[in-house]
């Protein structure tokens, strides 16, 4: 069977936090080996959408999800789906760099260790490969056993990228991964992302319009829990079809 062109397909997704509806019938597809940017004003449900894709919302009490989310054609909210296994396929990067207060090495191999990998050569090799892919190998190769908290914010975020890559997920979700970083660190991360595109499908939430236009292939604009407009990034930014989109990207609100 040929792999479907879309890595993730979301259909008529509603999500309620208690009574409050945070996603109001979202239908959207994320393509394989592309970077999709998700933009929209604060509180429109961007983080919520990301967390439905790795089922991190399961941890919030009182959450109700209806509709379907498929990863590679597989319904991830199906009763027999194991959320823990799913999260090994769908990595996530957070707004605040959040390395564990352990050594760089232990951070990177965390995902492998919890899957039961013990062989030293496999772990060593994974550390080198992941750190190289996250473009931070040269900076830390001589201090792999130092505490990851001793690195700068930008370096920490790349350690987090390496930590995600080590488990070889199919999809990487990024929730404003550079908003806590300075411009130089941000551009390092952006460069890293462009390299990762060949092997991974990336969904990135960002508030930075330039960033979205620089790195993404497609852009989705959300407002109040609804998908307003979705298309190739160039079209969204150059000739938005909807008035709300135009207002938002030209900075008239949000």
């Amino acid at each position, binding site marked *: 069977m040929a792999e479907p062109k879309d890595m993730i397909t979301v259909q008529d997704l509603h999500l309620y936090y208690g009574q409050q509806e945070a996603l109001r019938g979202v239908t959207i597809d994320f393509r394989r080996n592309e970077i999709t940017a998700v933009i929209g004003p604060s509180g429109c449900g961007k983080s919520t959408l990301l967390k439905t894709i790795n089922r*991190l919302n399961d941890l919030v009490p009182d959450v109700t999800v209806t509709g379907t989310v498929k990863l590679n054609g597989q319904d991830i909210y199906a009763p027999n789906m194991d959320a823990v296994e799913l*999260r090994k396929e769908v990595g996530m990067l*957070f707004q605040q760099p*959040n*390395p*564990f207060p352990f*050594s760089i090495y232990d951070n990177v191999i965390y995902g492998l*260790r*919890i899957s039961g990998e013990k062989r030293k050569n496999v772990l060593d090799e994974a550390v080198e490969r992941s750190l190289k892919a996250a473009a931070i190998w040269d900076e830390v190769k001589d201090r792999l056993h130092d*505490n990851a908290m001793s690195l700068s914010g930008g370096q920490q975020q790349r350690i987090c990228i390496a930590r995600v890559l080590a488990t070889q997920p199919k999809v990487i979700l990024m929730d404003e991964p550079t908003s806590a970083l300075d411009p130089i660190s941000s551009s390092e991360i952006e460069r890293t992302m462009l390299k990762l595109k060949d092997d991974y499908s990336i969904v990135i939430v960002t508030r930075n319009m330039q960033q979205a236009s620089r790195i993404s292939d497609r852009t989705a604009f959300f407002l109040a829990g609804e998908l307003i407009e979705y298309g190739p990034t160039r079209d969204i930014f150059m000739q938005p079809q909807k008035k709300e989109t135009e207002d938002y990207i030209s900075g008239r609100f949000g």
Partner: protein
Amino acid sequence: MKNDDIRASLLKRSRAAKNERFGKILTGLCILIIITVVVAIFYFVASKGLATFFTDKVNLWKFLTGTIWNPGTTDAQGNPQVGALPMIVGSFGVTFLAAIVATPFAIGAAVFMTEISPKVGRKVLQPVIELLVGIPSVVYGFIGLSVVVPFVRRTFGGSGFGILSGTFVLFVMILPTVTSMTIDALNSVPRNYREASLALGATRWQTIYKVVLRASTSGIITAVVFGMSRAFGEALAVQMVIGNAMLLPSNLISPASTLTSVLTMGMGNSVMGSLSNNALWSLALLLLIMPLIFNIIIRKIAKKGAMR
């Protein structure tokens, strides 16, 4: 306002600055009083406690390793019999055993209350723990005497008095303190470590075990040390169940004694300045120094743990 007025108002001390100075002096004074009290206590205990060695010429090594405690009498060579080893062993015995037993329970309870069921934890267990902390030690001792001692006697034989009963009583006494400090340690682990771990495909247990407990190791160690200091210094409850025999304990159910129990029992019966009185002060000095030493050792361990 004219320029001169502005200058004058800038040169004059403002009300806020005055208030600030007042606050500084007030808090400084409080600190000074506390420090004075602590230093005075140390000085007093040390001067009395060291007199045993300097005035009465007792050999320090003999004091720490001698097994016969009978300050009124002398041995064949005419040395006073002030061997503190039985009490040192007794104190360390109950302290370490109580800490070893209490730690897994404290960690288990704290994990339940912070990670597994915070709601039940806050509503039911938190008040219970606070209540347990507030129970006076004589009550624990009394329960120990009327429940634990007979239980030990029936189960393990002997009189029931001894290190084992002391351990049980101290275990219950330090458990709430160690638990609530462990809870604080677990709560201080940032939420986002947990999120990161779960997002990497860890189960809840793996997250607790490999991230939360590991990240809070030094906090948990601090909690245990704190419990140990408390156990080490507890006098009344232990005295009621340990049997108070100044013998080197040969097993966990033979009567023994601790530094504190000997102190509380002996203080009233000796004359200030006499050797028997000074020897008791030496025990007090030991009680003062030991928790300090635990603290230093374990802080070193914690630091090493954190660096790895």
